[in-house]
């Protein structure tokens, strides 16, 4: 597996738990508040991964403390948001960790494919 010194920085965060990875994915395309993250994860996974208020904020706290996400002080466009809600965005570290996790998963899938454990992707 090719590695470089930069990868080592992210290695300490890997592997991510599925729930953590899904939260990073949810924030990959822009800042969101908690409920929006939760909804996106449910929709994107067709309800297979279900986060709740009880688990989501434990994940947010851990991601925040490790610097992968941060709470944004400035709100998105005025009038478009609910001012009482707290919004989170992906940090550069978070983005890199998410990418590293994605490529880790990709490599794993490749390995499985080499062993014919994965069907070839169908052509659209």
């Amino acid at each position, binding site marked *: 597996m090719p590695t470089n010194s930069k990868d080592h920085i992210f290695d300490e965060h890997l592997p991510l738990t599925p729930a953590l990875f899904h939260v990073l994915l949810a924030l990959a395309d822009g800042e969101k508040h*908690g*409920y929006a993250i*939760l909804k996106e994860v449910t929709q994107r996974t067709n309800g297979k991964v*279900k*986060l*709740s*208020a*009880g*688990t*989501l*904020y*434990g994940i*947010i*706290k851990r991601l925040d403390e490790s610097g992968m996400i941060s709470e944004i002080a400035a709100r998105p466009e005025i009038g478009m948001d609910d001012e*009482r*809600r*707290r919004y989170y965005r992906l940090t550069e570290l978070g983005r890199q960790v998410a990418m590293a996790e994605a490529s880790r998963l990709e490599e794993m899938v490749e390995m499985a494919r080499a062993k014919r454990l994965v069907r070839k992707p169908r052509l659209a």
Partner: protein
Amino acid sequence: MPDEKRSKSDRLFRLAMKALPSDFRGDYGNEMHRVFNDQRREASEKEGFAGLMAVWWETLTGLLKTGPREHWEILKQDCAYAARMMRKNLGFTLIAVLTLGLGIGANTAIFSVVNAVLLKPLPYPKGKQLVVVRQAATGQGVADIAFSVPEVNDYRTQNKTLAGLEEYHTMTFTLLGREEPLRVQTGVVSAGFFDLFGVKPILGRSFRPEDDQVGAPAVLLVSYEFWKNSLGGDPQIVGKTFRMNDRVHTVIGVLPPVPQYPNENDVYMPTSACPFRSSESMRDNRDSRMMNVFGRERDGVTSHQVNADLATIAGRLKQDYPKSYPAGDGYSASAFSLQNELTKQARPTLLVLLAAAGFVLLIACANVANLMLARMAQRERELAVRSALGAGQSRLLRQLLTESVIIALLGALLGLLCASGSLELLTGFASRFTPRAREIRIDYIVLLFALAAAMATSVVFGSLSAFFSRETVSSGLKEATGAASSSRGRHRVRSLLIISQVAFSFLLLAGAGLMLRSFVRLTKVSPGFVSQNVLAMDINANFAKYTKPEQYAGLAQRLLESVKTEPGVVSAAISSSFPFDPDSIIFGPQFGTFDIESRPLKDGEVQPITTFRSASPDYFRTLGIPMIKGRTFTNQDSREAPKVAIINQALAKHRWQNEDPIGHRVSVDNGKTWMAIIGVVGDTKEFGLDRPADDELFVALDQFPNVGSLIVRTMSDPMTLARDLRRRIYEVDADTAITNMETIEHARGATLTSPRLTANLMGVFAGLALVMAATGIGGIMALTVSQRMHEIGIRMALGARPSAVLTMVLRQGLVLGLAGIAIGVLATMGLTRLLQTLLFEISPTDPATLVSVTCVLIGAAIVSCVVPAWRAASIDPLVALRFE
């Protein structure tokens, strides 16, 4: 949310959120609640009730997963932080851990004894059902009369409430065929004895009914200790044979290590193998009593029912055998719980020691709380900065409690080490009171106790310091004036802690002082004879060789002739037992009835009782027992001569009051033989210095031969003659076993072992308490001086003399000490009464003790205040003012 009316769901959600740490709730609580409401609303609209339930389920399980994880994270952080702080303040940490370690150690050690002796069930199956059956003659003032064989049979066959009734007595036999004749303490039991207790041999088998038939081959069960210590733990021991009482005995099994009651035996034999128990005179004589009786209550039967059943049988016996149970004797029979019998002697001492250890722990707690409070003053800024950086109050309190718990746990660890180190000493101590001492160990219950003690102490001292840190946190960053009020509050608490420490120390010192004075009084009690330079030993002749009284008289004569010629021997005597003989101390004095000539018993009058002892002519001279009246035994008091007796002063006073007993005749065999009283000797306290002298009747050895003990007075250290005397005894009869060879002075010291150890332990606890209280007072005064340096500087600048400052500080320390002493005196008045049963001839409120303790504590308070007072008096006003 604040505008919305809180629904039940909201309240339930808030309640469920309590699973999370408060900081977490503070950070994310509102946000979580909002998300939960959004989820709830959406699920309810789209999926109805089922959707709503699914949201609840996922949320609650999520909270239950997140809560512990978050708590764990905080705990890890707090522990790491606490470890850093403890390393930084190593002095404080060491003193706190040491103080708590000693406190918890003292408690754990005593608790390990209490647990094994008083709390644990007996190590027998359904041990609560086991009872000791006793006969009593309340009219005679005798609470424990042994059973005769016919009595055992009557109670066994007639009772309806006991599942088994087995007999026991103990004898000393001589085991031959080894290098030296070996005296073995032998328990003689009926066949079902071990089945009754549920004790199964670890090797071989137990007794069977056929072993107990007359003429059955002699068999032995050996105790675990005897097997290990004297037989080398031989795994092939079953089937091996020994010669005893001129018969071959085969070992059939080895018993497990269980407490043996009422005394420890080396081996056990069935009743058929005991030459005394199986003799016809013993089997048929209702008045030949030598057995103890044990039983097991049937399932579902109460002790009340058992006693009623036994009372019925006793009533029947009184009717059927009026001669054996005279009306005035108040004969009865009752059952006593074996567990209670095994431990009743130890209970008061152990409970007093546990209470004393508890006080030591409380004092230790107060000391550590004081240290914590003093340290809190130094940590004000640190806590305030952390608070300003966002740490909530509860988070800081939690941090402080974590530190307390870690210190207490380290203390518990140290305490456990202390306790396990003292285990051997404690087992030796407890074995003086109870056969259960062998069960003392550090088991999981003791570990739990140490843990609980640590938790309780950390809660006591931790919450005190945490409570005052609230003010610290809120006032730390404010001006000095703001902090002053919290500092005053802390000062008050510290003073209260010191006062309570002094009060508890007073209580402990008073308890220790009383025990010590009581012990000193005991050592000064005159036993009634000269115990120095006397060697005594039990002589166990081979029963099989000596079947007639005159053979014993001959043995006694030969032994005395040989021993008296040994250089260094002043005089020698033979008697049935010797004063302070350990074997006699276990069983206490054995009383028997006697008649006084021409003084028939009136109706309902109780027959007089006394203890008996056969003694050779030089018995009184050898022991230095004074002859008060008449003459001692001489060689002329032979078997053929008229029978004579000597009584002690107690018996003379009891039965003849002011009349001269000399010349009166008494009989111990219902008038068959009459003995003339020829002398009165002084009283001796030979069954323990703390009990009054019993009535004693001595008979001449030649007339009632009984070779039980040899007593030798020597010119110098008696132990130097031990080997030569032993040799001379073997020369007379090589089959004689010699046991309990010791100086009477040593035997007397042994009877004082338990009061000495109790006084020592109390002394150690009191010493710990005194040191802690003194350092507590010294500590608080030092802190006060350093806090008031500015004020003292001003006073001195305004002309206050150093001596005035010195007095001021000393006075403050003394006020705390005196307040504590005042409370201590009151508590002592109330509590030392509990010590009453352990004290000998001393009042629990003995004024001399209380005054001495007061002086000691005042002295300790002055000494501990001297250094801070001197420091205050030597403050340079200029430096002090500049310092501020």
